[in-house]
């Protein structure tokens, strides 16, 4: 077919091909303006449409950002309010617990101080040793003994009496000093008691100070959130993402716990509901085991809600305290019953596994081996069956965090998708525009021979009639001068308009070329 077409003009393929080329190039040259218009308008249309779509997505993106920020700030405000409330409750507890006893403590301190003061006064009332005693002693000692034995004897007696009196006085002084020391010694416990009381006061005051600092910090954060500052939004986003990953991790761990729990009770469940009935493609025993686990988790959720640990169900949260208490007791009771059932099922599973093992051994022709410590895994399974429901009951806490942070994460994901879409649309639009320009140039490359001829003809025509063009230039001159003056007058606006004009000129130039017909060329 192709060969027939090729050799339609001549038997020689080369000649025929040349004729075909001439025809094609002539046709392309004739259709050049329309082809250019088609290519450029298509490129511009795609570019414009995608730019409009991108703008719409941008608006949507902004709305999503605003909505995300609102949700984040609302969550953050609620958390901050709760934290501040908790701190105030702590302060109240400290004040009620410690500072309510302050009058008693104050009285104790006053009494202790009074006692210390009194003891101190008692300790300083010390009678000093009369200094005259020493002088009397020295005088008697220095009296001259005239050799008269009677005088000497009298003096000796006086000396002895004086010395005795001195010793007695000294002894009395020492006793008195000891007594003062005793009083000072008895002050020690009072000092210690005073010290302890002061330490208690210091601790209380320090606790209050810490709480006050925390409240100040929380209040600053709250203020920042109320103002909707970027800092607060970023901090909340980061915190939300951290919460999301942590809660996901904990939920994954809980899911594994659930799987273990399921395997623990699925096999013995067949004894209760039969091993041959199916719901859909799943054995009823498996579904029953799953239902038990789900009910346990639900009871755990209700229990945590009743204890006000989580806030997933407004209906339970809005119940009065008495009803919530009853509900909590009911949920706990059901949970304990289910834990007991699971424990017994786990034991039954162990028995069934033993039986199966024995049967498999007998079918394989092996002798059943006696195991000494078979009771250890039995007890382990029973304990696991009892503990796992309670462990799963706490899944409500990470679930709540997950649900709260999921909103933020979904918002971020939506934002990411919108941004990617916007960038992609812009890229495609830009690429289409440039592709259309490239195709226009490529088109001209194919018909470069006639175009060159056209240029040559044009230049010759221009060369022949140079005088006709001069007046045109002169006519255009005043307009150009006015434009220049205008630019001088408004430099800022002029620059803008120049830029705009340049862009318009480019497009107009491209469009101006379009209506160029072959005749004009």
């Amino acid at each position, binding site marked *: 077919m192709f060969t027939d077409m090729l050799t339609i003009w001549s038997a020689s393929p080369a000649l025929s091909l040349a004729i075909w080329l001439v025809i094609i190039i002539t046709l392309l040259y004739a259709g050049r303006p329309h082809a250019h218009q088609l290519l450029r308008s298509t490129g511009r249309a795609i570019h414009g449409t995608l730019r409009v779509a991108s703008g719409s997505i941008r608006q949507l993106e902004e709305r999503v950002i605003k909505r995300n920020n609102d949700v984040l700030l609302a969550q953050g405000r609620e958390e901050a309010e709760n934290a501040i409330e908790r701190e105030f409750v702590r302060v109240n507890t400290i004040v009620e617990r410690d500072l309510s006893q302050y009058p008693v403590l104050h009285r104790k301190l006053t009494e202790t101080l009074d006692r210390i003061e009194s003891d101190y006064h008692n300790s300083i009332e010390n009678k000093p040793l009369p200094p005259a005693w020493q002088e009397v002693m020295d005088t008697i000692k220095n009296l001259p003994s005239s050799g008269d034995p009677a005088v000497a004897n009298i003096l000796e007696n006086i000396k002895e009496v004086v010395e005795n009196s001195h010793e007695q006085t000294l002894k009395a002084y020492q006793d008195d000093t000891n007594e003062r020391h005793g009083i000072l010694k008895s002050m020690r416990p009072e000092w210690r008691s005073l010290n302890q009381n002061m330490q208690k006061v210091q601790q209380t005051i320090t606790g209050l100070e810490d709480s006050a600092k925390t409240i100040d910090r929380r209040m600053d954060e709250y203020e920042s959130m109320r103002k909707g500052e970027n800092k607060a939004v970023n901090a909340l986003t980061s915190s939300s993402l951290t919460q999301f990953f942590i809660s996901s991790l904990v939920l994954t761990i809980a899911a594994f716990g659930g799987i273990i729990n399921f395997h623990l009770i699925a096999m013995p469940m067949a004894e209760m509901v039969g*091993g*041959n009935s199916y719901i859909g*493609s799943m054995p009823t025993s498996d579904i029953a085991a799953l239902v038990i686990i789900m009910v346990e988790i639900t009871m755990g959720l209700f229990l945590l809600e009743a204890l006000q640990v989580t806030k997933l169900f407004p*209906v339970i949260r809005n119940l009065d305290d008495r009803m919530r208490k009853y509900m909590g007791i009911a949920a706990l009771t059901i949970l304990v019953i289910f834990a007991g059932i699971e424990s017994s099922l786990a034991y039954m599973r162990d028995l*069934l596994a033993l039986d199966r093992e024995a049967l498999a051994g*007998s079918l394989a022709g092996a002798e059943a081996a006696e195991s000494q410590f078979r009771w250890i895994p039995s007890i382990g399974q029973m304990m696991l069956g009892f503990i796992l429901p309670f462990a799963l009951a706490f899944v409500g806490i990470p679930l709540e965090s997950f649900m709260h942070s999921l909103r933020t994460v979904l918002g971020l994901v939506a934002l990411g998708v919108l941004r990617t879409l916007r960038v992609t649309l812009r890229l495609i639009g830009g690429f289409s525009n440039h592709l259309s320009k490239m195709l226009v140039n490529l088109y001209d490359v194919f018909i470069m021979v006639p175009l060159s001829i056209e240029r040559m003809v044009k230049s010759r025509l221009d060369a022949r009639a140079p005088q006709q063009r001069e007046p045109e230039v002169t006519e255009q001159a005043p307009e150009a001068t006015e434009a220049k003056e205008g630019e001088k007058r408004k430099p800022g606006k002029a620059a803008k308009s120049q830029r705009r004009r340049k862009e318009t000129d480019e497009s107009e130039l491209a469009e101006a070329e379009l209506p160029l017909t072959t005749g004009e060329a």
Partner: protein
Amino acid sequence: MIDVTNPKIRVALQGLRLITAVLLSLLLFGCAEPTNHSRAAFVLMDISDSYAAERDQARRLTNYLLSQLDTGDSLAVGFIDNSSFTERNIVAQVTFDERPSVASQQKRVFQRRVTGFMENFQTPSYHSDITGGVLLARDYLEQVDAGEKHLFLLSDLHEDVPPRLERDMKLNLSDVQVVAINVKRQRSDNENPQEYEQRLASWEKRVEENGGRWAMVNNMERLEKRGVLR
């Protein structure tokens, strides 16, 4: 007029929607055609002169099937002799209870019965009425109405029907998988191997023409690998 802005009414409406969704799901589950998950197997062992020595293979196969079958499944063991289409040809048959513990007890009883038959077996049969045995097994498998039906054939597939028996009839083995196990080669097969191949091909053709599926496992260990009864 219901005030939908009231939080309590909104919660109630949400609950109502949830209940409706659950009920609809249950209804859809209920309307779906129930799938039969039970399995049935019939072990047919040849006790003719040429094959009676392979009884241990039948015992191994029975034990394997007992370990694989579970609650609600059915198992029967029969033998091929001079005239196989009689109730006396069934050694033991059981449909396991829904409770796993009871099923384990049934398996023990079944195993004892089969072992007892093997131990008390003395005289091999002169003829081998394989078609009669297959018909017996087919009737049993149809009767238990299982989702999967398997017929395990322990024989050399050399049929030698007594002249008085009429066995030229359709087997009607639709939905039955026939697994020939341990097809022993006879002395004549050694002289002319084509005979052995022709015998296998004729049985395969006969089973497939009657709506059954044919499989051959000569080694017992390969039975598990081929995923039979899984």
